[in-house]
């Protein structure tokens, strides 16, 4: 299953950044196709020259900051659709920046456990930078001050290939590159460091993890408390204690693959029965 997951991640990352297949050979301008009215499910900056879809977090901030109603039912609908349909399965299987972090974590260095209180920073990112500051000051604060996907997918290619952008580079550009380096270094040392500390999209999808249409279920009657699922969980959860239902599980399905008793079942919501869903 892990090979399939990696293939899906690679395919999805190429699919949402496939403008080079649509007649844009050089990454020195933004792709302007009709697909940009659709949101990509994962965190993928629309300033990436090859991005073919809009970033849901960037678009939401634009509507909150500059929209007539300071909200968008359209973007809200996409977030609800992806969240209710898949929950954080999107983080584990679709998100391009998630794939990048997964690959970075394979670099052989000493690895560290995640300091869990840092997870509350995601709330600050969502409430403060994505909702409040855009509403009060009319600027996309998350994109401007935090988002490393923008620096990686947009800042670096434009800095190299666009002379116009190169002429405008100032201090903020290098501050954002510094933030990118911090998150990348964190992801080498700790699994999915950015997702766990600063991703508002993962936080939103996490609200739906318990009820998502496509998800994971657990049969406690088969469980022998061997603890193998907790050992293999890269997010340092205890799936057998019900933590697979929390917003931290990215549905990598390593617990399902490792469980010798076959306690975990992956499928659509209709396959869950009540006795399995009530574990917490």
């Amino acid at each position, binding site marked *: 299953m892990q090979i399939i997951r990696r293939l899906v991640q690679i395919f999805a990352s190429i699919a949402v950044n496939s403008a080079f297949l649509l007649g844009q050979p050089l990454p020195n*301008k*933004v792709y*302007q196709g*009709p697909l*940009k*009215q*659709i*949101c990509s499910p994962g965190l993928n*900056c*629309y*300033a990436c020259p090859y*991005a073919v*879809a*809009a*970033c849901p977090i*960037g*678009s939401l901030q*634009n*509507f909150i900051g500059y*929209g007539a109603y300071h909200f*968008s*039912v*359209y*973007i*809200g*609908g*996409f977030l*609800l*659709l992806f969240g*209710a*349909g898949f929950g954080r399965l999107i983080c584990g299987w679709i998100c391009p920046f998630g794939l990048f972090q997964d690959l970075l974590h394979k670099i052989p260095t000493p690895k560290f456990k995640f300091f869990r209180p840092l997870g509350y920073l995601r709330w600050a990112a969502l409430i403060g930078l994505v909702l409040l500051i855009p509403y009060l000051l009319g*600027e*996309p604060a998350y*994109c*401007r001050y935090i*988002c490393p996907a*923008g*620096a990686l997918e*947009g*800042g670096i290619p*434009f*800095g190299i290939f666009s002379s116009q*952008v190169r002429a*405008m*580079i*100032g201090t*903020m*550009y*290098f*501050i*954002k*590159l510094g933030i990118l380096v911090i998150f990348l270094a964190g992801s080498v040392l700790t699994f999915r460091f950015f997702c766990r500390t600063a991703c508002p999209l993962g936080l939103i999808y996490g609200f739906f993890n318990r*009820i*998502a*249409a496509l998800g994971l279920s657990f049969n406690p009657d088969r469980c022998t408390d061997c603890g193998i699922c907790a050992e293999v969980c890269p997010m340092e959860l205890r799936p057998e204690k019900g933590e697979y239902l929390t917003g931290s599980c990215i549905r990598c399905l390593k617990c399902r693959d490792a469980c010798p008793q076959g306690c975990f079942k992956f499928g659509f*919501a*209709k396959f869950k029965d009540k006795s399995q869903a009530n574990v917490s």
Partner: protein
Amino acid sequence: MHTRKPLRISYLFFKKKLHPVFLLIILAVVLIVWGIVLNEHAVTQRNAHYLCLECIGIS
């Protein structure tokens, strides 16, 4: 004693009981269609067509 079977809206349309999450998905589709009626899809596209200078660290 005669008891009346509770009416589910999903029975009317789909002739079977739906998992609540599918009602959320239907709500999401309604929101997206509502957004299209409000022309928010075009605004989203226009926003995404311009190079987001904040995103790449130029501001």
